[in-house]
């Protein structure tokens, strides 16, 4: 086995072991109830890996493997959409005043990004020889545009409204966003490659996925309070004179 092959196997196996730990941590901390879609995603990724790994060892990386890979990717992508919706719902529940705005953002961003992604799929169909893989990569690119766009919209939305992310939700969104962004670039590049699984692109995507699994594990294991904004206890208070000036200003304002 060459060094490259060993690295490739390590990067394939390692993130799924980490995902196993993620599932374990989620069950142990009862986070599977808070983020059921993400829990399903993590569990599905492990199952998909086990199936693909077994098939690759028994039958190789062609034929059945390609078909299973495509079906698995489609299912995994659908679940990832569920996770993104779960993150949007997280803000709706936490900030009821923004419920309408959150729904509007999700719908409008989905429509705009879908139109953009479909336009891209039509204008740049790819040059691969295998129809199934070509279709898979085009779908992958379309979905990556949608998912990274939705996650960036969510980050910008929370930034504009100065919303506080719960540490777990932030970690899930961050990992998913990084993965979707790298997937966007790699799916676009893959369409111009003649052979299945260009090694460099595959290694980059797999390394990114490992990093994302680490991010998820880090944030899910972290104590929620450590990453929450501190409550307004005395140490974080604005100094007394500042509060007085502010209150005087407000009082003057209210009396006008």
């Amino acid at each position, binding site marked *: 086995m060459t060094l490259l092959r060993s690295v490739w196997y390590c990067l394939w196996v390692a993130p799924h072991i980490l995902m196993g730990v993620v599932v374990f941590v989620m069950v142990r901390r009862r986070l599977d109830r808070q983020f059921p879609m993400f829990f399903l995603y993590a569990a599905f990724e492990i199952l998909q890996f086990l199936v693909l790994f077994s098939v690759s060892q028994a039958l190789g990386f062609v034929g059945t493997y390609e078909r299973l890979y495509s079906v698995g990717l489609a299912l995994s992508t659908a679940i990832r959409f569920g996770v993104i919706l779960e993150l949007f719902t997280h803000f709706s529940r936490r900030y009821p005043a923004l419920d309408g705005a959150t729904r509007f953002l999700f719908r409008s961003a989905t429509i705009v990004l879908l139109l953009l992604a479909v336009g891209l799929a039509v204008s740049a169909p790819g040059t691969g020889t295998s129809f199934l893989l070509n279709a898979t990569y085009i779908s992958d690119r379309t979905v990556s545009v949608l998912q*990274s766009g939705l996650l*960036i919209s969510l*980050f910008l939305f929370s930034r504009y409204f100065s919303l506080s992310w719960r540490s777990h939700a932030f970690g899930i969104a961050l990992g998913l966003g990084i993965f979707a962004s790298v997937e*966007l670039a790699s799916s676009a590049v893959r369409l111009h490659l003649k052979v299945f699984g260009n090694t460099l692109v595959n290694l980059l995507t797999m390394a990114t996925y490992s990093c994302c699994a680490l991010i998820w594990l880090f944030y899910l294991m972290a104590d929620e309070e450590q990453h929450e904004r501190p409550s*307004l206890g005395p140490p974080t208070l604005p100094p007394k004179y500042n509060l007085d000036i502010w*209150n005087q200003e407000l009082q003057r304002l209210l009396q006008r």
Partner: protein
Amino acid sequence: MIITTILVLVSLLALSCLLWSAKTHALASNALANPAEHIRAVDIEAFRNLVDPDEEEFLRNHLPPGEFRKIQRERLRAAVDYVSCVAQNAAILVRVADAGRRSPDPATAEAAEKLVENALRLRLYAFHAIVRLYLGMIFPASRISPARIAESYEQMTRLVVMLGCLQYPTRGISAAL
């Protein structure tokens, strides 16, 4: 190939945006250390005057059209500055009140909850108002009246005082009222 290059650049941009978000998330607690320093005073009456439809009508009737358009643009530009300032204050108050929502005292938590709602609503209004004010700058002849901003801001400031009273009953806030 051009589309692929654009997509790679977009993904790099998205990645930078996410890493920047991660950095600001990690630093968020430090930024809260002294929120009062970031709050800017807003002259609500001056803002009301700038978006007052009667005032606008008066100027429209007493100035030549060219002069009116020029002055109206200036007025709306000033109004945008006010709204931006109010929106920034609202964002700071969201963060301050958000922390107050976890207070063990139910009255404080409730006041903080109300303040968060009002501040978010104000930020939403501010976003709409800025768009409308810019449209007004492009078409100065049209009538723009984002008066809801001023009302919302007043409502929010009342809640800030209330939250302040609940959190620091002995810290001179009640004396200032």
